[in-house]
Protein backbone atom coordinates (compact mmCIF):
# COMPACT_ATOMS: atom_id res chain seq x y z
CA UNK A 1 0.00 0.00 0.00
CA UNK A 2 2.66 2.45 1.11
CA UNK A 3 4.36 2.40 -2.24
CA UNK A 4 1.40 3.89 -4.00
CA UNK A 5 0.40 6.42 -1.41
CA UNK A 6 2.62 9.25 -2.43
CA UNK A 7 5.05 10.75 0.00
CA UNK A 8 3.72 14.24 0.80
CA UNK A 9 5.81 16.38 -1.51
CA UNK A 10 6.99 13.93 -4.14
CA UNK A 11 7.19 15.62 -7.51
CA UNK A 12 6.46 13.87 -10.79
CA UNK A 13 9.26 13.71 -13.33
CA UNK A 14 7.30 15.44 -16.06
CA UNK A 15 4.81 18.23 -15.86
CA UNK A 16 6.05 20.85 -13.43
CA UNK A 17 4.18 23.38 -15.51
CA UNK A 18 0.40 23.54 -14.94
CA UNK A 19 -0.64 23.45 -18.59
CA UNK A 20 1.80 20.70 -19.39
CA UNK A 21 0.46 18.71 -16.45
CA UNK A 22 -3.10 18.94 -17.79
CA UNK A 23 -2.00 17.94 -21.26
CA UNK A 24 -0.10 14.99 -19.85
CA UNK A 25 -3.14 13.88 -17.90
CA UNK A 26 -5.18 13.89 -21.10
CA UNK A 27 -2.41 12.02 -22.90
CA UNK A 28 -2.33 9.41 -20.14
CA UNK A 29 -6.08 8.88 -20.47
CA UNK A 30 -5.79 8.45 -24.23
CA UNK A 31 -2.88 6.03 -23.94
CA UNK A 32 -4.60 4.07 -21.17
CA UNK A 33 -7.85 3.71 -23.12
CA UNK A 34 -6.03 2.72 -26.30
CA UNK A 35 -3.98 0.16 -24.42
CA UNK A 36 -7.10 -1.37 -22.92
CA UNK A 37 -9.09 -1.19 -26.14
CA UNK A 38 -8.45 -4.76 -27.40
CA UNK A 39 -9.98 -6.08 -24.18
CA UNK A 40 -12.90 -3.69 -24.36
CA UNK A 41 -13.47 -4.91 -27.91
CA UNK A 42 -13.41 -8.51 -26.69
CA UNK A 43 -16.05 -7.77 -24.05
CA UNK A 44 -18.23 -5.87 -26.55
CA UNK A 45 -18.01 -8.70 -29.07
CA UNK A 46 -19.16 -11.13 -26.41
CA UNK A 47 -22.49 -9.28 -26.27
CA UNK A 48 -23.01 -9.10 -30.03
CA UNK A 49 -24.98 -11.22 -32.44
CA UNK A 50 -22.65 -13.34 -34.58
CA UNK A 51 -23.56 -11.43 -37.74
CA UNK A 52 -22.84 -8.07 -36.08
CA UNK A 53 -19.50 -9.28 -34.70
CA UNK A 54 -18.21 -10.46 -38.06
CA UNK A 55 -19.56 -7.46 -39.94
CA UNK A 56 -18.05 -4.00 -40.17
CA UNK A 57 -16.69 -2.94 -36.74
CA UNK A 58 -19.18 -0.99 -34.68
CA UNK A 59 -19.45 0.26 -31.13
CA UNK A 60 -23.23 0.57 -31.28
CA UNK A 61 -25.38 -2.54 -31.28
CA UNK A 62 -28.14 -4.24 -29.38
CA UNK A 63 -26.47 -6.27 -26.62
CA UNK A 64 -27.51 -9.87 -26.10
CA UNK A 65 -26.58 -12.52 -23.54
CA UNK A 66 -27.26 -15.40 -25.93
CA UNK A 67 -23.58 -16.09 -26.70
CA UNK A 68 -22.88 -16.70 -23.04
CA UNK A 69 -25.69 -19.21 -23.02
CA UNK A 70 -24.32 -20.87 -26.15
CA UNK A 71 -20.83 -21.41 -24.78
CA UNK A 72 -21.88 -22.66 -21.36
CA UNK A 73 -24.35 -25.10 -22.82
CA UNK A 74 -23.28 -28.68 -22.29
CA UNK A 75 -22.51 -30.13 -25.71
CA UNK A 76 -22.16 -33.62 -24.32
CA UNK A 77 -19.15 -35.08 -26.07
CA UNK A 78 -16.48 -32.42 -25.65
CA UNK A 79 -15.12 -30.61 -22.61
CA UNK A 80 -17.93 -28.43 -21.29
CA UNK A 81 -17.53 -25.09 -19.56
CA UNK A 82 -18.84 -26.38 -16.24
CA UNK A 83 -16.46 -29.33 -16.34
CA UNK A 84 -13.44 -27.18 -17.21
CA UNK A 85 -14.42 -24.62 -14.61
CA UNK A 86 -14.66 -27.23 -11.87
CA UNK A 87 -11.33 -28.77 -12.93
CA UNK A 88 -9.65 -25.37 -12.87
CA UNK A 89 -11.32 -24.44 -9.62
CA UNK A 90 -10.14 -27.49 -7.71
CA UNK A 91 -6.67 -27.61 -9.24
CA UNK A 92 -6.05 -23.93 -8.54
CA UNK A 93 -7.53 -24.03 -5.05
CA UNK A 94 -5.69 -27.11 -3.85
CA UNK A 95 -2.36 -26.18 -5.39
CA UNK A 96 -2.56 -22.70 -3.88
CA UNK A 97 -3.35 -24.13 -0.46
CA UNK A 98 -0.35 -26.47 -0.77
CA UNK A 99 1.89 -23.60 -1.84
CA UNK A 100 0.89 -21.56 1.18
CA UNK A 101 1.31 -24.47 3.59
CA UNK A 102 4.85 -25.05 2.31
CA UNK A 103 5.87 -21.45 1.72
CA UNK A 104 4.69 -19.74 4.90
CA UNK A 105 6.96 -21.64 7.33
CA UNK A 106 9.87 -21.37 4.88
CA UNK A 107 9.42 -17.64 4.44
CA UNK A 108 9.00 -17.17 8.17
CA UNK A 109 12.26 -18.99 8.79
CA UNK A 110 14.08 -17.06 6.08
CA UNK A 111 12.90 -13.65 7.24
CA UNK A 112 12.39 -13.71 10.99
CA UNK A 113 14.86 -16.28 12.24
CA UNK A 114 17.36 -16.41 9.40
CA UNK A 115 19.99 -19.09 9.70
CA UNK A 116 23.39 -18.94 8.07
CA UNK A 117 23.25 -19.13 4.28
CA UNK A 118 19.63 -17.98 4.08
CA UNK A 119 20.51 -16.17 0.88
CA UNK A 120 21.68 -19.39 -0.73
CA UNK A 121 18.42 -21.09 0.17
CA UNK A 122 16.41 -18.24 -1.31
CA UNK A 123 18.58 -18.35 -4.41
CA UNK A 124 17.99 -22.05 -4.76
CA UNK A 125 14.23 -21.53 -4.74
CA UNK A 126 14.41 -18.77 -7.32
CA UNK A 127 16.94 -20.65 -9.43
CA UNK A 128 14.46 -23.47 -9.99
CA UNK A 129 12.36 -20.93 -11.91
CA UNK A 130 15.25 -20.46 -14.31
CA UNK A 131 15.23 -24.08 -15.36
CA UNK A 132 13.01 -24.35 -18.42
CA UNK A 133 10.14 -26.72 -17.87
CA UNK A 134 11.21 -28.62 -20.99
CA UNK A 135 14.19 -29.83 -18.99
CA UNK A 136 11.83 -31.85 -16.85
CA UNK A 137 8.73 -32.41 -18.95
CA UNK A 138 9.71 -35.78 -20.42
CA UNK A 139 10.49 -37.50 -17.11
CA UNK A 140 7.35 -35.96 -15.61
CA UNK A 141 5.38 -37.37 -18.51
CA UNK A 142 6.94 -40.80 -18.04
CA UNK A 143 6.51 -40.79 -14.26
CA UNK A 144 2.94 -39.59 -14.63
CA UNK A 145 2.16 -42.45 -17.00
CA UNK A 146 2.24 -44.59 -13.92
CA UNK A 147 4.34 -47.52 -12.83
CA UNK A 148 4.46 -50.28 -10.27
CA UNK A 149 7.48 -51.53 -8.42
CA UNK A 150 7.24 -54.80 -6.55
CA UNK A 151 9.42 -54.72 -3.49
CA UNK A 152 11.28 -58.03 -3.29
CA UNK A 153 10.81 -60.30 -0.26
CA UNK A 154 7.71 -58.56 1.14
CA UNK A 155 5.96 -58.48 -2.19
CA UNK A 156 4.35 -55.08 -1.70
CA UNK A 157 3.39 -53.27 -4.84
CA UNK A 158 4.29 -49.63 -4.99
CA UNK A 159 3.30 -47.12 -7.64
CA UNK A 160 0.33 -45.51 -9.25
CA UNK A 161 -1.93 -45.69 -12.27
CA UNK A 162 -1.62 -43.12 -15.00
CA UNK A 163 -1.95 -39.58 -13.71
CA UNK A 164 -2.12 -38.15 -17.21
CA UNK A 165 -5.49 -36.53 -17.60
CA UNK A 166 -6.04 -36.35 -13.86
CA UNK A 167 -6.23 -33.31 -11.64
CA UNK A 168 -3.49 -34.66 -9.36
CA UNK A 169 -0.61 -34.18 -11.75
CA UNK A 170 -1.49 -30.52 -12.33
CA UNK A 171 -1.91 -29.89 -8.61
CA UNK A 172 1.62 -31.19 -7.99
CA UNK A 173 3.17 -29.28 -10.88
CA UNK A 174 1.39 -25.99 -10.18
CA UNK A 175 2.49 -26.21 -6.55
CA UNK A 176 6.09 -26.61 -7.69
CA UNK A 177 5.66 -23.84 -10.25
CA UNK A 178 4.39 -21.25 -7.76
CA UNK A 179 6.36 -22.21 -4.68
CA UNK A 180 9.56 -20.25 -5.44
CA UNK A 181 7.65 -17.07 -6.19
CA UNK A 182 5.56 -17.47 -3.05
CA UNK A 183 8.61 -17.98 -0.81
CA UNK A 184 10.21 -14.96 -2.43
CA UNK A 185 7.22 -12.66 -1.92
CA UNK A 186 6.31 -13.90 1.55
CA UNK A 187 9.86 -13.42 2.79
CA UNK A 188 9.64 -9.74 1.99
CA UNK A 189 6.32 -9.41 3.81
CA UNK A 190 7.67 -11.24 6.87
CA UNK A 191 10.83 -9.12 6.80
CA UNK A 192 8.66 -6.06 7.30
CA UNK A 193 7.55 -7.19 10.75
CA UNK A 194 9.58 -4.99 13.15
CA UNK A 195 12.04 -7.13 15.10
CA UNK A 196 11.38 -4.97 18.20
CA UNK A 197 7.73 -6.03 18.23
CA UNK A 198 8.66 -9.70 18.28
CA UNK A 199 11.27 -9.12 20.98
CA UNK A 200 8.77 -7.18 23.09
CA UNK A 201 6.33 -10.06 22.80
CA UNK A 202 9.05 -12.49 23.83
CA UNK A 203 9.91 -10.40 26.89
CA UNK A 204 6.25 -10.36 27.82
CA UNK A 205 6.44 -14.15 27.85
CA UNK A 206 4.46 -14.70 24.69
CA UNK A 207 4.75 -18.23 23.30
CA UNK A 208 5.86 -18.85 19.73
CA UNK A 209 2.29 -19.56 18.62
CA UNK A 210 1.17 -16.47 20.47
CA UNK A 211 3.79 -14.36 18.76
CA UNK A 212 2.74 -15.68 15.39
CA UNK A 213 -0.96 -15.23 16.04
CA UNK A 214 -0.95 -11.89 17.79
CA UNK A 215 2.06 -10.05 16.38
CA UNK A 216 3.12 -11.46 13.04
CA UNK A 217 -0.11 -12.58 11.38
CA UNK A 218 -1.95 -9.25 11.63
CA UNK A 219 0.97 -7.54 9.89
CA UNK A 220 1.54 -10.09 7.13
CA UNK A 221 -2.09 -11.07 6.47
CA UNK A 222 -2.53 -8.71 3.50
CA UNK A 223 0.74 -9.99 2.08
CA UNK A 224 -0.43 -13.57 2.45
CA UNK A 225 -3.59 -12.75 0.56
CA UNK A 226 -1.68 -11.03 -2.23
CA UNK A 227 0.74 -13.92 -2.61
CA UNK A 228 -2.07 -16.46 -2.71
CA UNK A 229 -3.80 -14.39 -5.37
CA UNK A 230 -0.71 -14.27 -7.54
CA UNK A 231 -0.45 -18.06 -7.30
CA UNK A 232 -4.10 -18.32 -8.28
CA UNK A 233 -3.51 -16.10 -11.31
CA UNK A 234 -0.51 -18.05 -12.59
CA UNK A 235 -2.18 -21.42 -11.99
CA UNK A 236 -5.48 -20.35 -13.54
CA UNK A 237 -3.76 -19.06 -16.69
CA UNK A 238 -1.33 -21.95 -17.19
CA UNK A 239 -1.71 -23.68 -20.54
CA UNK A 240 1.45 -25.57 -21.55
CA UNK A 241 1.36 -28.26 -18.87
CA UNK A 242 -2.42 -28.44 -18.98
CA UNK A 243 -2.50 -29.13 -22.70
CA UNK A 244 0.54 -31.42 -22.81
CA UNK A 245 -0.27 -33.62 -19.84
CA UNK A 246 -3.97 -33.23 -19.43
CA UNK A 247 -5.85 -32.39 -22.56
CA UNK A 248 -7.54 -35.78 -22.59
CA UNK A 249 -8.97 -35.83 -19.09
CA UNK A 250 -9.24 -33.04 -16.60
CA UNK A 251 -9.02 -30.15 -19.07
CA UNK A 252 -8.79 -26.71 -17.48
CA UNK A 253 -10.23 -23.37 -18.55
CA UNK A 254 -7.35 -22.36 -20.89
CA UNK A 255 -7.68 -25.72 -22.65
CA UNK A 256 -11.42 -25.15 -22.94
CA UNK A 257 -11.02 -21.65 -24.44
CA UNK A 258 -8.52 -22.96 -26.94
CA UNK A 259 -10.85 -25.79 -27.94
CA UNK A 260 -13.66 -23.26 -28.41
CA UNK A 261 -11.57 -21.57 -31.04
CA UNK A 262 -10.72 -24.86 -32.71
CA UNK A 263 -14.32 -26.01 -32.91
CA UNK A 264 -16.04 -22.73 -33.56
CA UNK A 265 -13.63 -21.45 -36.17
CA UNK A 266 -14.73 -17.97 -37.08
CA UNK A 267 -17.47 -17.54 -34.53
CA UNK A 268 -16.09 -14.35 -33.09
CA UNK A 269 -18.93 -13.43 -30.75
CA UNK A 270 -19.07 -16.89 -29.28
CA UNK A 271 -15.33 -17.05 -28.73
CA UNK A 272 -15.43 -13.58 -27.13
CA UNK A 273 -18.11 -14.63 -24.69
CA UNK A 274 -16.11 -17.73 -23.79
CA UNK A 275 -12.99 -15.61 -23.24
CA UNK A 276 -14.78 -13.15 -21.00
CA UNK A 277 -15.96 -16.02 -18.80
CA UNK A 278 -12.45 -17.50 -18.74
CA UNK A 279 -10.59 -14.35 -17.72
CA UNK A 280 -13.18 -12.72 -15.45
CA UNK A 281 -12.38 -14.40 -12.10
CA UNK A 282 -8.67 -13.72 -12.30
CA UNK A 283 -8.93 -10.22 -13.72
CA UNK A 284 -11.26 -9.14 -10.93
CA UNK A 285 -8.98 -10.75 -8.33
CA UNK A 286 -6.00 -8.98 -9.85
CA UNK A 287 -7.75 -5.60 -9.80
CA UNK A 288 -8.51 -5.99 -6.14
CA UNK A 289 -4.99 -7.02 -5.17
CA UNK A 290 -2.92 -5.02 -7.66
CA UNK A 291 -1.09 -2.77 -5.22
CA UNK A 292 0.02 -5.42 -2.79
CA UNK A 293 0.89 -7.94 -5.44
CA UNK A 294 3.43 -5.78 -7.13
CA UNK A 295 4.83 -4.51 -3.89
CA UNK A 296 5.51 -8.08 -2.85
CA UNK A 297 7.23 -8.79 -6.14
CA UNK A 298 9.30 -5.63 -6.21
CA UNK A 299 10.18 -5.51 -2.54
CA UNK A 300 11.07 -9.19 -2.53
CA UNK A 301 14.32 -8.14 -4.11
CA UNK A 302 14.73 -4.57 -3.09
CA UNK A 303 13.82 -4.59 0.59
Amino acid sequence: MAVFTRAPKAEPILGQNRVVAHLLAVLTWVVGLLYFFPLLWLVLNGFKEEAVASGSPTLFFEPTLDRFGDVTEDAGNTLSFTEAFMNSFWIVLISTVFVMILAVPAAYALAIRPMRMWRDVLFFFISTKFLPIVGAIMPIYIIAQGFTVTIPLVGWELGWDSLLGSRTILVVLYTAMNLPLAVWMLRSFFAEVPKELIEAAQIDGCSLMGQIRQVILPIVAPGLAATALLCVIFAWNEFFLAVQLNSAGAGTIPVWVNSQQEFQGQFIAQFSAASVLAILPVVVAGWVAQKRMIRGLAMGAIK
Partner: protein
Amino acid sequence: MTDTVVDGAFVDDPSVEDQSVEDESVVRAREVKALARREGWKRRLPILPALIFTIVVTQIPFLFTLFYSLTDWNISSIEPREFIGFDNYTSLNNPGEKFFREAAWVSVQMTVIAVLGSLFVGTGLAILLDRKFLGQGFIRTLLITPFLVMPVVASLLWKTQMFNKTFGLLNWLIESLGFEGIEFASRYPMASVITVLIWQWSPFMMLIVLAGLQGQDTSTLEAARVDGATTFGIFRQITFPQLRPYLELGTLLGAIYLIQVYDHIEVITGGVGTKNLPFWIAQRSIGGGNLFGLASAYSILVVIASIIIANIGLRVLSNLLEDDS
Protein backbone atom coordinates in the same frame (compact mmCIF):
# COMPACT_ATOMS: atom_id res chain seq x y z
CA MET B 1 30.15 -53.19 15.46
CA THR B 2 29.30 -50.99 18.41
CA ASP B 3 32.98 -50.67 19.29
CA THR B 4 33.99 -49.26 15.97
CA VAL B 5 31.29 -46.64 16.10
CA VAL B 6 32.38 -45.52 19.53
CA ASP B 7 35.98 -45.48 18.38
CA GLY B 8 35.08 -43.40 15.41
CA ALA B 9 33.25 -40.89 17.53
CA PHE B 10 36.18 -40.58 19.86
CA VAL B 11 38.75 -40.16 17.15
CA ASP B 12 36.70 -37.32 15.71
CA ASP B 13 37.06 -35.39 18.91
CA PRO B 14 40.57 -35.73 20.32
CA SER B 15 39.80 -33.58 23.37
CA VAL B 16 37.75 -36.36 24.91
CA GLU B 17 40.24 -39.13 24.32
CA ASP B 18 40.93 -39.29 27.99
CA GLN B 19 37.77 -38.67 29.90
CA SER B 20 39.47 -38.01 33.23
CA VAL B 21 41.16 -34.81 32.07
CA GLU B 22 37.97 -33.42 30.67
CA ASP B 23 37.28 -30.32 32.69
CA GLU B 24 34.16 -28.37 33.26
CA SER B 25 34.70 -25.72 30.60
CA VAL B 26 34.86 -28.35 27.88
CA VAL B 27 31.58 -29.79 29.05
CA ARG B 28 30.01 -26.38 29.04
CA ALA B 29 31.41 -25.61 25.60
CA ARG B 30 29.94 -28.81 24.30
CA GLU B 31 26.58 -28.04 25.83
CA VAL B 32 26.59 -24.62 24.20
CA LYS B 33 27.48 -26.24 20.90
CA ALA B 34 24.67 -28.79 21.21
CA LEU B 35 22.26 -26.03 22.08
CA ALA B 36 23.40 -24.04 19.07
CA ARG B 37 22.96 -27.09 16.90
CA ARG B 38 19.49 -27.72 18.22
CA GLU B 39 18.68 -24.04 17.70
CA GLY B 40 20.07 -24.27 14.17
CA TRP B 41 17.80 -27.20 13.38
CA LYS B 42 14.87 -25.38 14.85
CA ARG B 43 15.57 -22.56 12.45
CA ARG B 44 16.08 -24.82 9.46
CA LEU B 45 13.15 -27.15 10.08
CA PRO B 46 10.38 -24.89 8.73
CA ILE B 47 12.24 -24.60 5.43
CA LEU B 48 12.68 -28.32 4.91
CA PRO B 49 9.21 -29.29 3.59
CA ALA B 50 9.33 -26.61 0.90
CA LEU B 51 12.94 -27.43 0.09
CA ILE B 52 12.37 -31.17 -0.17
CA PHE B 53 9.25 -30.75 -2.28
CA THR B 54 11.07 -28.42 -4.66
CA ILE B 55 14.02 -30.78 -4.98
CA VAL B 56 11.81 -33.82 -5.60
CA VAL B 57 9.58 -32.18 -8.19
CA THR B 58 12.11 -30.02 -10.04
CA GLN B 59 15.56 -31.55 -9.61
CA ILE B 60 14.93 -35.27 -9.77
CA PRO B 61 13.14 -35.21 -13.15
CA PHE B 62 16.10 -33.21 -14.37
CA LEU B 63 18.45 -36.08 -13.44
CA PHE B 64 16.22 -38.43 -15.43
CA THR B 65 16.45 -36.08 -18.41
CA LEU B 66 20.22 -36.20 -18.08
CA PHE B 67 20.08 -39.99 -18.19
CA TYR B 68 17.65 -40.11 -21.15
CA SER B 69 19.88 -37.73 -23.09
CA LEU B 70 22.60 -40.41 -23.19
CA THR B 71 20.26 -42.98 -24.77
CA ASP B 72 18.70 -43.46 -28.19
CA TRP B 73 15.25 -43.74 -26.68
CA ASN B 74 12.36 -43.48 -29.13
CA ILE B 75 9.13 -43.95 -27.25
CA SER B 76 7.15 -45.16 -30.27
CA SER B 77 9.63 -47.94 -31.00
CA ILE B 78 9.42 -51.23 -29.14
CA GLU B 79 13.17 -51.70 -29.14
CA PRO B 80 14.71 -51.21 -25.72
CA ARG B 81 16.62 -47.99 -25.25
CA GLU B 82 20.35 -48.26 -25.55
CA PHE B 83 23.09 -46.26 -23.98
CA ILE B 84 24.79 -44.29 -26.74
CA GLY B 85 26.97 -41.87 -24.81
CA PHE B 86 27.19 -38.37 -26.20
CA ASP B 87 25.95 -39.20 -29.70
CA ASN B 88 22.81 -37.13 -29.23
CA TYR B 89 24.93 -34.12 -28.40
CA THR B 90 27.41 -34.52 -31.22
CA SER B 91 24.58 -35.08 -33.70
CA LEU B 92 23.67 -31.43 -33.19
CA ASN B 93 26.59 -30.56 -35.43
CA ASN B 94 24.99 -32.43 -38.30
CA PRO B 95 23.74 -30.14 -41.04
CA GLY B 96 20.37 -31.88 -40.73
CA GLU B 97 19.93 -30.53 -37.21
CA LYS B 98 19.99 -26.89 -38.17
CA PHE B 99 16.52 -26.56 -36.66
CA PHE B 100 17.99 -26.64 -33.21
CA ARG B 101 20.14 -23.64 -34.00
CA GLU B 102 17.18 -21.91 -35.61
CA ALA B 103 15.07 -22.50 -32.51
CA ALA B 104 17.88 -21.21 -30.31
CA TRP B 105 18.10 -18.05 -32.38
CA VAL B 106 14.32 -17.57 -32.23
CA SER B 107 14.48 -17.97 -28.45
CA VAL B 108 17.19 -15.34 -28.11
CA GLN B 109 15.45 -12.85 -30.39
CA MET B 110 12.06 -13.33 -28.84
CA THR B 111 13.26 -13.04 -25.24
CA VAL B 112 15.55 -10.06 -25.79
CA ILE B 113 13.13 -8.03 -27.91
CA ALA B 114 10.12 -8.80 -25.72
CA VAL B 115 11.95 -7.99 -22.47
CA LEU B 116 13.51 -4.77 -23.74
CA GLY B 117 10.31 -3.75 -25.53
CA SER B 118 8.08 -4.23 -22.52
CA LEU B 119 10.65 -2.56 -20.28
CA PHE B 120 10.65 0.44 -22.61
CA VAL B 121 6.86 0.67 -22.95
CA GLY B 122 6.39 -0.09 -19.25
CA THR B 123 8.74 2.71 -18.21
CA GLY B 124 6.92 5.12 -20.51
CA LEU B 125 3.56 4.19 -19.02
CA ALA B 126 4.96 4.46 -15.49
CA ILE B 127 6.30 7.97 -16.12
CA LEU B 128 2.89 9.01 -17.48
CA LEU B 129 1.11 7.53 -14.46
CA ASP B 130 3.52 8.99 -11.91
CA ARG B 131 1.46 12.09 -11.21
CA LYS B 132 -1.77 12.98 -9.51
CA PHE B 133 -4.61 13.43 -11.93
CA LEU B 134 -8.30 12.70 -12.12
CA GLY B 135 -8.83 8.96 -12.62
CA GLN B 136 -5.23 7.93 -11.97
CA GLY B 137 -6.29 4.73 -10.18
CA PHE B 138 -8.79 3.90 -12.92
CA ILE B 139 -6.25 4.27 -15.71
CA ARG B 140 -3.70 2.24 -13.77
CA THR B 141 -6.28 -0.51 -13.36
CA LEU B 142 -7.01 -0.49 -17.09
CA LEU B 143 -3.31 -0.61 -17.88
CA ILE B 144 -2.48 -3.62 -15.71
CA THR B 145 -5.36 -5.71 -17.04
CA PRO B 146 -3.52 -7.20 -20.05
CA PHE B 147 -1.05 -8.80 -17.64
CA LEU B 148 -3.89 -10.59 -15.84
CA VAL B 149 -5.47 -12.01 -18.98
CA MET B 150 -4.60 -15.62 -19.68
CA PRO B 151 -2.06 -15.92 -22.51
CA VAL B 152 -4.35 -18.18 -24.54
CA VAL B 153 -7.11 -15.58 -24.55
CA ALA B 154 -4.74 -12.66 -25.20
CA SER B 155 -3.23 -14.51 -28.14
CA LEU B 156 -6.58 -15.55 -29.62
CA LEU B 157 -7.96 -12.05 -29.16
CA TRP B 158 -5.10 -10.49 -31.09
CA LYS B 159 -5.05 -13.23 -33.68
CA THR B 160 -8.76 -13.27 -34.53
CA GLN B 161 -9.87 -9.73 -33.72
CA MET B 162 -6.81 -7.55 -34.35
CA PHE B 163 -4.43 -9.27 -36.80
CA ASN B 164 -6.97 -11.24 -38.87
CA LYS B 165 -7.36 -10.10 -42.45
CA THR B 166 -11.14 -10.33 -42.59
CA PHE B 167 -12.26 -9.56 -39.05
CA GLY B 168 -9.22 -7.83 -37.57
CA LEU B 169 -9.52 -4.25 -36.40
CA LEU B 170 -5.97 -3.43 -37.52
CA ASN B 171 -6.79 -4.44 -41.05
CA TRP B 172 -10.07 -2.56 -40.94
CA LEU B 173 -8.04 0.53 -39.97
CA ILE B 174 -5.47 -0.07 -42.68
CA GLU B 175 -8.14 -0.64 -45.31
CA SER B 176 -10.16 2.40 -44.35
CA LEU B 177 -6.96 4.40 -44.82
CA GLY B 178 -6.89 3.04 -48.35
CA PHE B 179 -4.14 0.43 -48.08
CA GLU B 180 -4.35 -3.28 -48.67
CA GLY B 181 -4.96 -5.56 -45.69
CA ILE B 182 -2.29 -7.89 -44.39
CA GLU B 183 -2.61 -11.28 -42.72
CA PHE B 184 -0.22 -10.29 -39.94
CA ALA B 185 0.14 -13.61 -38.14
CA SER B 186 1.35 -15.49 -41.23
CA ARG B 187 3.18 -12.61 -42.93
CA TYR B 188 5.03 -11.35 -39.85
CA PRO B 189 4.77 -14.24 -37.36
CA MET B 190 7.66 -13.15 -35.16
CA ALA B 191 6.51 -9.53 -34.91
CA SER B 192 2.94 -10.67 -34.18
CA VAL B 193 3.98 -12.92 -31.31
CA ILE B 194 6.32 -10.29 -29.87
CA THR B 195 3.63 -7.59 -30.10
CA VAL B 196 1.29 -9.64 -27.95
CA LEU B 197 4.09 -10.49 -25.51
CA ILE B 198 4.97 -6.82 -25.11
CA TRP B 199 1.29 -5.89 -24.69
CA GLN B 200 1.00 -8.40 -21.87
CA TRP B 201 4.31 -7.75 -20.10
CA SER B 202 4.56 -3.95 -20.26
CA PRO B 203 1.99 -3.56 -17.45
CA PHE B 204 4.13 -5.76 -15.25
CA MET B 205 7.23 -3.66 -15.94
CA MET B 206 5.14 -0.52 -15.46
CA LEU B 207 4.14 -1.55 -11.95
CA ILE B 208 7.72 -2.35 -10.95
CA VAL B 209 9.05 0.94 -12.34
CA LEU B 210 6.16 2.79 -10.70
CA ALA B 211 7.13 1.30 -7.35
CA GLY B 212 10.65 2.61 -7.99
CA LEU B 213 9.52 6.10 -9.04
CA GLN B 214 7.28 6.52 -6.04
CA GLY B 215 9.92 5.31 -3.62
CA GLN B 216 12.30 8.06 -4.70
CA ASP B 217 14.02 10.25 -2.18
CA THR B 218 12.15 13.51 -2.72
CA SER B 219 14.60 15.78 -0.92
CA THR B 220 17.31 14.98 -3.45
CA LEU B 221 14.95 15.82 -6.29
CA GLU B 222 14.02 19.14 -4.70
CA ALA B 223 17.63 20.03 -4.02
CA ALA B 224 18.47 19.36 -7.65
CA ARG B 225 15.54 21.47 -8.78
CA VAL B 226 16.56 24.34 -6.51
CA ASP B 227 20.03 24.11 -8.01
CA GLY B 228 18.44 24.62 -11.41
CA ALA B 229 18.75 21.13 -12.88
CA THR B 230 16.67 20.45 -15.99
CA THR B 231 13.96 17.77 -16.06
CA PHE B 232 16.07 15.65 -18.36
CA GLY B 233 19.17 16.17 -16.24
CA ILE B 234 17.29 15.11 -13.11
CA PHE B 235 16.00 12.00 -14.86
CA ARG B 236 19.41 11.00 -16.16
CA GLN B 237 21.45 11.74 -13.07
CA ILE B 238 19.09 11.09 -10.17
CA THR B 239 15.97 9.18 -11.18
CA PHE B 240 17.62 6.69 -13.49
CA PRO B 241 20.34 5.54 -11.06
CA GLN B 242 17.68 5.14 -8.36
CA LEU B 243 15.49 3.18 -10.77
CA ARG B 244 18.26 0.84 -11.80
CA PRO B 245 17.58 -1.94 -9.29
CA TYR B 246 13.92 -1.89 -10.29
CA LEU B 247 14.76 -2.04 -13.98
CA GLU B 248 17.15 -4.91 -13.32
CA LEU B 249 14.51 -6.74 -11.33
CA GLY B 250 11.97 -6.27 -14.13
CA THR B 251 14.45 -7.58 -16.68
CA LEU B 252 15.20 -10.60 -14.57
CA LEU B 253 11.63 -11.59 -13.74
CA GLY B 254 10.51 -10.84 -17.30
CA ALA B 255 13.30 -12.96 -18.76
CA ILE B 256 12.50 -15.91 -16.48
CA TYR B 257 8.97 -16.06 -17.85
CA LEU B 258 9.54 -14.93 -21.43
CA ILE B 259 12.31 -17.44 -22.16
CA GLN B 260 9.70 -20.16 -21.62
CA VAL B 261 6.97 -18.71 -23.83
CA TYR B 262 4.85 -21.44 -25.35
CA ASP B 263 1.16 -20.48 -25.28
CA HIS B 264 1.45 -17.41 -27.51
CA ILE B 265 3.38 -19.32 -30.16
CA GLU B 266 1.04 -22.29 -30.12
CA VAL B 267 -2.03 -20.09 -30.56
CA ILE B 268 -0.87 -17.29 -32.86
CA THR B 269 1.31 -19.10 -35.37
CA GLY B 270 1.15 -22.76 -34.41
CA GLY B 271 4.94 -22.62 -34.51
CA VAL B 272 5.39 -21.49 -38.12
CA GLY B 273 8.43 -19.23 -38.23
CA THR B 274 8.43 -18.82 -34.46
CA LYS B 275 9.52 -22.12 -32.98
CA ASN B 276 11.53 -21.31 -29.90
CA LEU B 277 13.40 -23.96 -27.94
CA PRO B 278 10.66 -24.97 -25.48
CA PHE B 279 8.14 -25.23 -28.31
CA TRP B 280 10.46 -27.21 -30.52
CA ILE B 281 11.58 -29.63 -27.83
CA ALA B 282 8.02 -30.30 -26.74
CA GLN B 283 7.08 -30.96 -30.34
CA ARG B 284 9.88 -33.46 -30.87
CA SER B 285 9.17 -35.41 -27.71
CA ILE B 286 5.78 -35.56 -26.02
CA GLY B 287 4.10 -33.54 -28.79
CA GLY B 288 4.29 -36.50 -31.18
CA GLY B 289 7.97 -36.56 -32.21
CA ASN B 290 8.61 -39.32 -29.68
CA LEU B 291 12.39 -38.87 -29.81
CA PHE B 292 12.86 -38.77 -26.07
CA GLY B 293 16.61 -39.39 -26.17
CA LEU B 294 17.41 -36.66 -28.65
CA ALA B 295 14.94 -34.19 -27.21
CA SER B 296 16.40 -34.78 -23.76
CA ALA B 297 19.82 -33.81 -25.06
CA TYR B 298 18.33 -30.56 -26.39
CA SER B 299 16.67 -29.95 -23.04
CA ILE B 300 19.99 -30.37 -21.28
CA LEU B 301 21.58 -27.82 -23.58
CA VAL B 302 18.73 -25.41 -22.91
CA VAL B 303 19.16 -25.92 -19.20
CA ILE B 304 22.90 -25.28 -19.44
CA ALA B 305 22.27 -22.08 -21.38
CA SER B 306 19.67 -21.08 -18.79
CA ILE B 307 22.10 -21.74 -15.97
CA ILE B 308 24.60 -19.38 -17.58
CA ILE B 309 21.93 -16.71 -17.97
CA ALA B 310 20.63 -17.43 -14.48
CA ASN B 311 24.07 -16.98 -12.98
CA ILE B 312 24.25 -13.51 -14.45
CA GLY B 313 20.74 -12.90 -13.17
CA LEU B 314 21.49 -14.21 -9.70
CA ARG B 315 24.50 -11.93 -9.47
CA VAL B 316 22.14 -9.06 -10.10
CA LEU B 317 19.85 -10.39 -7.37
CA SER B 318 22.65 -10.75 -4.87
CA ASN B 319 23.58 -7.11 -5.47
CA LEU B 320 19.99 -6.22 -4.76
CA LEU B 321 19.98 -8.21 -1.54
CA GLU B 322 23.29 -6.89 -0.34
CA ASP B 323 22.10 -4.04 1.84
CA ASP B 324 19.48 -6.28 3.32
CA SER B 325 21.50 -7.72 6.20
